[in-house]
């Protein structure tokens, strides 16, 4: 038993923390928050140069092939920022979908670019009937000789504005036709004729609507050799991707806790630091408990995945705990900070917005609690 990081992980953690601190100061993050992509080309190039966009990609495809736990250590530091942009969508979820579902040709075509940051993947699954079960994917892919035609709307897609290629789930067969979910992933260039991507306004960032208007996709762009198994690919990729997303949220929670603890020392009211008041202490303690619950459920899931154990129940547990934790930690942060916490320039609401943006991504807490019960065989 050893719950510490390895030396290599400590080095990665330090490098990532240094990068985030140096390149992503608060003003930069505030400026990027409500941009369509959440990142600048220059910043994205820097991350690529550090090798972090290929962290999960095998060396044969230009990556560094590190473990999910290593990847999580990196994303925990990105979450502290919170660094925005398509890092997770492209290099984790997108890369895993291609790795697990793509043909050799598709991997060769897509993954080196992902690792270099020249190819950016966006994963388009959800539709106006929002949800993370196969039935909610209804957009048809009509088969024609040598090509498919996609028409419909994908909604609440993360980071589509930053993507060069969309991994788009569409229906090649009706549900329950005996051959898988009837859903296939299509590799669609974001600049294909008929694709219109639009950032959704509101209290979330880099969440998009994509309209497909008779978009023609070559048949070779169906991901993998087996049409109709798209949902299985998504499920398998999600198992690895979710705890990395959780680790990002753990880093975010840690950042909010750190802000609150610091403020509890420097802010004085009634002639003492506010942190001397038990109510203020309890807001922070509540946040710390959520943070640590998120942290240890997340890292246990990662350990199970990396060591080849059955990790399903742990992954659902981690996501259920972590999505909820980020909401609650932000609430605690706001209680501690009161007025100053809602000033845009202060930076706390970067996290509050992020906690909402990510809450439903790949399934919300309630969804994963139900999946947890299933995974435990009850």
């Amino acid at each position, binding site marked *: 038993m050893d719950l510490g990081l390895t030396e290599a992980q400590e080095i990665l953690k330090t490098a990532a923390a240094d990068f985030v601190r140096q390149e992503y100061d608060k003003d930069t993050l505030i400026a990027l928050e409500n941009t369509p992509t959440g990142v600048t080309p220059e910043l994205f190039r820097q991350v690529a140069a550090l090798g972090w966009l290929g962290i999960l990609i095998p060396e044969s495809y230009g990556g560094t092939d590190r473990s999910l736990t290593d990847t999580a250590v990196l994303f925990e530091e990105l979450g502290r920022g919170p660094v925005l942009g398509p890092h997770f969508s492209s290099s984790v979820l997108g890369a895993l979908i291609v790795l697990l579902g793509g043909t050799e040709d598709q991997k060769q075509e897509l993954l080196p670019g992902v690792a270099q940051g020249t190819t950016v993947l966006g994963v388009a699954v959800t539709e*106006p*009937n*929002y*949800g993370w079960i196969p*039935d*909610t994917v209804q957009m048809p892919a009509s088969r024609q000789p040598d090509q498919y035609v996609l028409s419909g709307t994908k*909604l*609440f897609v993360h980071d589509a504005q930053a993507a060069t290629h969309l991994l788009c789930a569409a229906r090649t067969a009706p549900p329950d036709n005996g051959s898988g979910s009837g859903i296939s992933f299509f590799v669609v260039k974001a600049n294909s004729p008929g694709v219109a991507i639009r950032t*959704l*306004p*509101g*209290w*979330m960032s880099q*969440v998009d*609507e994509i309209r497909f208007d008779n978009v023609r996709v070559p048949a070779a762009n169906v991901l993998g050799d087996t049409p109709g198994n798209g949902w299985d690919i998504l499920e398998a990729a999600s198992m690895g991707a979710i705890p990395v997303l959780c680790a990002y949220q753990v880093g975010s929670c840690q950042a909010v806790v750190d802000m609150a603890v610091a403020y509890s020392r420097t802010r*004085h*009211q*009634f*002639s003492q630091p*506010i942190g001397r*008041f038990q*109510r*203020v202490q309890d807001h922070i303690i509540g946040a710390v408990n959520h943070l640590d619950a998120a942290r240890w459920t997340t890292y246990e899931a990662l350990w199970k995945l990396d060591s080849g154990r059955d990790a399903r129940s742990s992954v659902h547990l981690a996501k259920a705990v972590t999505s909820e934790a980020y*909401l609650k930690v932000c*609430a605690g942060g*706001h*209680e501690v900070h*009161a*007025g100053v916490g*809602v*000033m*845009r*320039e202060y930076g706390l*609401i970067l996290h*509050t917005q992020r906690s*909402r*943006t990510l*809450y*439903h991504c790949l399934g*919300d*807490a*309630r969804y994963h609690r139900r999946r947890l019960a299933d995974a435990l065989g009850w």
Partner: protein
Amino acid sequence: MDFEVTYTPEQEAFRAEVRGWLSENIPADLTQPVDPADLTLEQYHKLRELGRRLGAKGWLYPTYPQAYGGGDLAVDVVMILEEELDRYGLHLPPYYDSGGRLGGASIFVWGTEEQKQHFLPPIFRGEWRTWQLLSEPNAGSDLAGVQTRAVRDGDSYVINGQKIYIGSLYGCEMMWTIVVTDPEAPRHHNLGWLMIPYDLPGIEVRPMELLTAGGEGGASPGLKHTIFFDNVRVPAFNLVGGENNGWQVATTHLELEHGGGGIVRRNRIVDQFLEYCTTTKHNGATLSRNPDVRDDMVDVYVKSEINRLFGLRTYWLSHAHRPRSYEGPQGSYYRKITALEIAETMLRALGPYAMTNDPQWGPLQGLLEHYQRAAVVGLHPGGTTDIQKVVMSRRIGIGRAAKEQAGRLR
């Protein structure tokens, strides 16, 4: 017990009068934005004009004496006014005027006859809108620790200092604040309460960018400001409540800020959310038929009902002149904390739809998206949840035999 106002025929006749008057005086094209930050200058002027017309009839601050510009109306009748305005999504006053609502009450309780004659009519007739100035960079929860100074110089006070989280869009005519008038005096006995015209030399108003500026009573403001005082000269006449008596004056408006007046308005956002769920289909089925959404709706409803009953109870105590204790801050605390919980429950019920105000996809024209933000911001104005609990504790007498009394309202 009787949980409802029973109206007499005379009162129902008044309702008919109000209804007719409102249909004539509320412009047909008067709409209010979902996010108060989107209030246009044109909309603002229409609301101010409506306020002046209401004020001319004594309906803007209707419970106050006509002698000061009020309407001398009994509280049951005022509820008719509020109910009828509510049909237009409006209430009294129809724009952000918390300084008038809270400051008017304070002047009414603590001002000299001369001060009441001078200050109350323009407030109650809608000629002034008034901003309250309370928080400072170093004085939030610890409001009695304000540092803005007012030094007596002949017939004037000279003010220097800084106030934050102030006001709304499009300025005002009058402001009031508490200031240190005697830095040597002990805490709570060192303050003065001053009326300050908005346009005096030395006042600088600088906008603050917040997540949203909602959350206070009265129409929500669209924006907050920092206000700087640089040797601002105010007539000594404007000191209400006497020398170094500012904290006493403040107890009146703090009591109102802490919920001591009660609330009888329904929570329109909750009502609209529930209606939305019973009328909107998702995946082919009405949302309210989804067992999870149904449970979420119950959760929202139960909290909202408790808020309604707490507000009603306090309203009755206050207007029936019964002894009040912890009820105001209890209602305020519970409303703040459940607003955040309700927003989270809506987020669970509606998924990411709750976060967008997209014209096509945002539910209720973005009302719910704005509520997500407003529920966070609303935790703090008028006293944080922690401060409400401080006041509750003292009044319940937890750990102390002598219970603190509620602030004077009349």
